[in-house]
């Protein structure tokens, strides 16, 4: 899963090579840890270790069957960001509410997903009304939402209880699908409230599930999401005397409860006990261009503008921590993956805090020195002049005087060496 080359792995195992930072970082990510956590010996009790162990106990490698290298990286990075968020919240003295304990009621006549959704609606006082914003609901429960997008989705989402309660929503690149976002948020809420425990602090929701164990968990969470978003009594009351197989019924359920067409049809089938044939006919109207298009108000469930795992909510916390002097600018850069050459993108903050750590001029000077040490020991880089192409000309000297110049490109590489002779000097 760490994608280390077999030769490299063998060298490391037999102590013929040392772990580089990159090796450690890659390995740490597999465990959902940062390098510091890995070096502190946390791998044994890391969430991913526990997940794979619980997997062995309960389901005969089902999790591993569903874990591609890409989804493992995403899941690992998700958990690393959660650690960063938890750390920043501690440094800012923030506290978040504990997740409410909601019992899974023993009602054998109901599907577990339906049963759980009803319990949650009751515990949170949601009645049978539409949920205007899943984001707001999760926020009230103290659950952070992280966002990621990908061209080829292997994961729909994930969730974790530790170190903070959080869900990950994986969106498709391209046109937004807010109804899917709402369903994913509801789906992960089910896992968070009912499927996670200290021995399984993290769980993933693959786009295509393999294996019976995870299939069962996923089926329940899907049913939960549908029931939570569009409750039976609410759907029944809304449809009233309208033909439940009609396009009008689909449109009012979809637009009122903020769900997609398929989910609306499924809820109508469930609520009005429609046959599978009728359901199929409703679904197929879509292909015959008879389907009504409908619009729902999804403004409450838009992803944040600063998107990605290291976008919101981490971005806002880094800003506050920097503003209040809890972290230095260098840590803010590392947390957000911002180069020392770039400004920290925090409007309204002290410009001194946000300015690049290294100016392009100093970067050119450093590149020149790095080059000279290897190629012309004793030569010294001095004057730095900007060039029209965004690069730099760096004057080179030694004890005896000028020795020509180096042309440094805008990306910091030496593009031309116009130095001459041999030399030697040092401070």
């Amino acid at each position, binding site marked *: 899963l760490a994608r280390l080359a077999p030769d490299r792995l063998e060298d490391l195992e037999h102590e013929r090579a040392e772990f580089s930072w990159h090796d450690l970082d890659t390995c740490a990510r597999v465990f959902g840890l940062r390098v510091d956590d890995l070096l502190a010996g946390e791998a044994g009790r890391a969430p991913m270790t526990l997940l794979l162990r619980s997997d062995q106990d309960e389901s005969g490698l089902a999790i591993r069957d569903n874990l591609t290298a890409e989804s493992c990286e995403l899941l690992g990075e998700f958990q690393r960001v959660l650690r960063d968020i938890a750390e920043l919240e501690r440094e800012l003295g923030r506290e978040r509410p504990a997740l409410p304990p909601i019992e899974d009621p023993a009602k054998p006549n109901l599907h577990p997903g339906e049963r759980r959704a009803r319990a949650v609606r009751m515990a949170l006082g949601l009645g049978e009304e539409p949920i205007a914003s899943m984001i707001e609901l999760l926020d009230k429960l103290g659950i952070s939402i992280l966002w990621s997008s990908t061209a080829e989705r292997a994961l729909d989402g994930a969730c974790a209880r530790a170190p903070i309660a959080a869900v990950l929503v994986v969106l498709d690149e391209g046109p937004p699908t807010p109804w899917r976002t709402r369903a994913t948020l509801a789906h992960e809420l089910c896992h968070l409230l009912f499927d996670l425990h200290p021995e399984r602090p993290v769980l993933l929701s693959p786009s295509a599930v393999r294996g019976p164990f995870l299939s069962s968990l996923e089926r329940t969470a899907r049913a939960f999401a549908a029931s939570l978003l569009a409750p039976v009594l609410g759907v029944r009351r809304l449809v009233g005397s309208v033909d439940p197989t009609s396009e009008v019924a689909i449109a009012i359920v979809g637009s009122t409860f903020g769900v997609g067409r398929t989910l609306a049809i499924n809820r109508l089938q469930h609520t009005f006990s429609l046959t599978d044939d009728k359901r199929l006919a409703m679904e197929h109207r879509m292909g015959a261009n008879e389907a009504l298009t409908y619009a729902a108000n999804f403004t409450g469930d838009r992803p944040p503008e600063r998107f990605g795992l290291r976008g919101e909510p981490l971005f806002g916390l880094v800003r506050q921590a920097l503003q209040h002097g809890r972290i230095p600018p260098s840590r803010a850069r590392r947390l957000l993956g911002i180069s020392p050459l770039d400004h920290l993108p925090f409007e309204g903050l002290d410009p001194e805090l946000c300015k690049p750590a290294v100016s392009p001029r*100093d970067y050119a000077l*450093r590149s020149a*020195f*790095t080059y000279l*040490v290897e190629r012309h020991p004793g030569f010294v880089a001095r004057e730095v002049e900007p060039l029209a192409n965004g690069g730099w000309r760096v004057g080179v000297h030694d004890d005896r005087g000028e020795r020509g110049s180096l042309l440094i490109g805008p990306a910091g590489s030496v593009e031309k060496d116009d130095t001459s002779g041999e030399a030697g*000097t*040092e*401070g």
Partner: protein
Amino acid sequence: MSFHHLQRWPDSCVAASMCIIQRWRGEVPTEERFRRDNPSRDPMMISRLLPRVVPRIVELGEEHELQLPLRGDRIVAVTAIGHNYDAWRRRALPTLRSPHGSIGPELHMVVLSTRLRDGFGFMDPFYPAEAQPLEVSDNEFSRWFAGHAFIASR
């Protein structure tokens, strides 16, 4: 820290940094011999004249990776852009004085000895032992670090 070594000549920071490594290893420092064996004062000679020293180029933005050897009972000699280093020293440590005067625009060399929460603790052979180890934040370090690191094991 007891392994600091004050350079005996104004242009001897490479040899003196090697002496800091020697003292850290419990060896007797041989600054004069290093000057003789490395007349061009080439930093790359460190790994040829001293055993168990591995050179490495550290790219901009990867400076924090130097904490890895420091956590593993190693110390790291690093090159510094003299002019930027001196500007930092004047700002951060205005009262620090050296018997050799000021550092010029040439390459300088110091030895990182500890990782701090934000930055590094290090030995500078140009300045007397009393004020050492000096401390520099990650931000400031990236402004004067010249890109070469020499990782020394015991």
